[in-house]
């Protein structure tokens, strides 16, 4: 039965569903489909093939996944002109993780990384997700900029925000999970396990408490499930339970199980499955551990299960777990220009606004006299001889009251390179403020 909180929340969400103005989504969807098609266009595959052929003949540096290869496939991408080759790779689970290029600009680093399935199973696509992260810095944005079906290679750009107080000569990237397919499940038909269900009382008898984790033990192998071991067979809150422990390795580990016992008369007793991760010492961990544990809890008496047959099956999600870690050297380019400008807004001028330009970003920060003025100053764009540059995304922005007024700040990252020396002004509101 639902509580009052549930009903209140449910009603509010139902009202949201009824009230939202649904826009015409189709144009945006078509744009995306077209863009993805272009990204995968055969000509790029052809370029890869040509480069691969050249490699055979000349042994040149245009190796698949290398910097020259990247420049070849991203022929319209201005960023490749402002990054330095790195070309470091690690491999696990037949997935090669490479940092192809990187560059530091002040407190921003721009990296090109790639993932390639070397197993021939084509597990990657341009719909994958990873938990790629940096150590000691934050990824502001990551986006897939290229996918090659032929070589099953995905290329990302990463924009990393660095702590300006630290001197990052090196940057460490780490990843241990790739979600490879969305919405597709592999099914494992439930099959009988050779697990004896006759001795629940000889195992641990546990009273569960909120947040308390069941004990985990590694026992004999369960031959019907690859790599699995039998943990405890015991009682929890007076209910029989069976624990199955499966090592986390390979690329099919996330599993939505179905478990039940059939007794001699054909009666079926379904299990509630409590799942958790444990580390190599069988200690509970919130992170990806060494083992995945399935605790099958039966809402039935032990007598009704004894002598029965345990069936176990379910659906796998396609996730690849592994350890990929690369430390790269960050070359720094002094391509940052800083300016201090006065910004006219409605009702006055914001003085001493700091503007920083790099080839990949624009940052603006200052103190406005009023909240309205701060609001008006957010969202500037660089201006070059070609006009106002709008092909960007805002990484962060905000304003808050401080001692001297209302501090505001924003940073935008470009989707292509804008060289600082080419920026002649900043457009804020209706004004273009020249940079000198």
């Amino acid at each position, binding site marked *: 039965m639902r509580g009052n909180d549930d009903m209140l929340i449910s009603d509010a*969400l139902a*009202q949201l569903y009824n009230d939202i103005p*649904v826009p015409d989504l189709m144009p945006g*969807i078509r744009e995306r489909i077209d863009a993805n098609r272009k990204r995968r266009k055969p000509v790029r595959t052809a370029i890869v093939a040509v480069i691969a052929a050249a490699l055979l003949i000349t042994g040149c540096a245009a190796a698949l996944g290398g910097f020259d290869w990247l420049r070849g496939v991203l022929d319209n991408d201005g960023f490749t002109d402002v990054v330095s080759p790195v070309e470091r790779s690690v491999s696990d689970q037949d997935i090669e993780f490479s940092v192809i290029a990187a560059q530091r600009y002040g407190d921003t680093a721009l990296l090109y990384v790639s993932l390639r399935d070397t197993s021939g199973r084509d597990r990657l696509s341009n719909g994958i997700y990873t938990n790629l992260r940096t150590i000691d810095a934050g990824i502001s944005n990551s986006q897939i900029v290229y996918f090659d079906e032929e070589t099953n290679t995905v290329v990302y750009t990463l924009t990393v925000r660095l702590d300006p107080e630290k001197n990052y000569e090196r940057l460490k990237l780490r990843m241990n999970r790739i979600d490879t397919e969305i919405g597709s499940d592999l099914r494992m038909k439930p099959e009988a396990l050779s697990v004896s269900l006759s001795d629940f009382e000889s195992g641990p008898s546990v009273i569960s408490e909120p*947040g308390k984790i069941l004990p985990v033990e590694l026992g004999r192998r369960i031959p019907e499930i690859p790599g699995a071991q039998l943990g405890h067979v015991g009682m929890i809150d007076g209910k029989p339970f069976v624990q199955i422990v499966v090592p986390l390795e390979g690329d099919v580990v996330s599993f*939505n199980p179905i478990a039940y016992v059939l007794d001699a008369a054909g009666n079926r007793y379904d299990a509630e499955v409590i799942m958790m991760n444990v580390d190599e010492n069988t200690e509970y961990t919130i*992170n990806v551990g060494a083992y995945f544990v399935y605790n099958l809890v039966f809402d039935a008496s032990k007598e009704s299960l004894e002598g029965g047959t345990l069936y176990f099956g379910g659906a796998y999600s396609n996730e690849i777990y592994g350890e990929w870690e690369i430390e790269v050297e960050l070359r720094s380019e002094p391509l940052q220009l800083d300016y201090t400008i006065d910004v006219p807004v409605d009702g006055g001028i914001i003085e001493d606004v700091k503007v920083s330009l790099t080839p990949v970003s624009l940052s603006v920060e200052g103190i406005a006299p009023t909240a309205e003025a701060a609001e008006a100053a957010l969202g500037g764009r660089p201006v070059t001889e070609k006009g106002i540059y709008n092909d960007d995304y805002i990484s962060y922005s905000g304003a808050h009251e401080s001692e001297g007024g209302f501090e505001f700040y924003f940073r935008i990252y470009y989707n292509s390179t804008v060289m600082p020396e080419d920026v002649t002004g900043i457009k804020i509101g209706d004004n273009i403020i020249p940079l000198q």
Partner: protein
Amino acid sequence: MSGFDLERAVSEHGRALLTRAYALLCDWHEAEDAVQDAFASAYEHSGKFDGKSELAWLMKITENKCLDRLRRHKTVSLEELGDAAGSVTDSYDAGYSPPVIAALGKLSAEERAVVLWRVCDELDYGEIARRQHISPGAARKRAERAKKRLAEYLRDYEKEGRA
């Protein structure tokens, strides 16, 4: 391609997916983008749809797109905004911001997801635990805590609205 009819799917499920994306991201423009990304992705991978529940399949893709966006913007930054977060004017203004979104916006992304999975999808704690890589006990605690806070915020907004 399978028999996936994109325009019909958009017409039938667009509202539900937008609602979910908006509730997860608390940003109308981001939600619209995430849903468009999801439909485009669904169209391209429609051969892999098992034909069972189209809405559930699309919902999963949409949620993944939303979570990806949240991960991307994670460094946008709560640490940076710190205690001043309450007074921050976020430039990702939704433009259309009903009280339930304002209330959801006060929860963390993980809490929002848990509440939606529990209240709307009626998922059990085992499944929520699996999705968030936490124990079922922790999932239960997180859900209960998040629901309680969200309900309190909603009641506060109701009171403000009446006042």
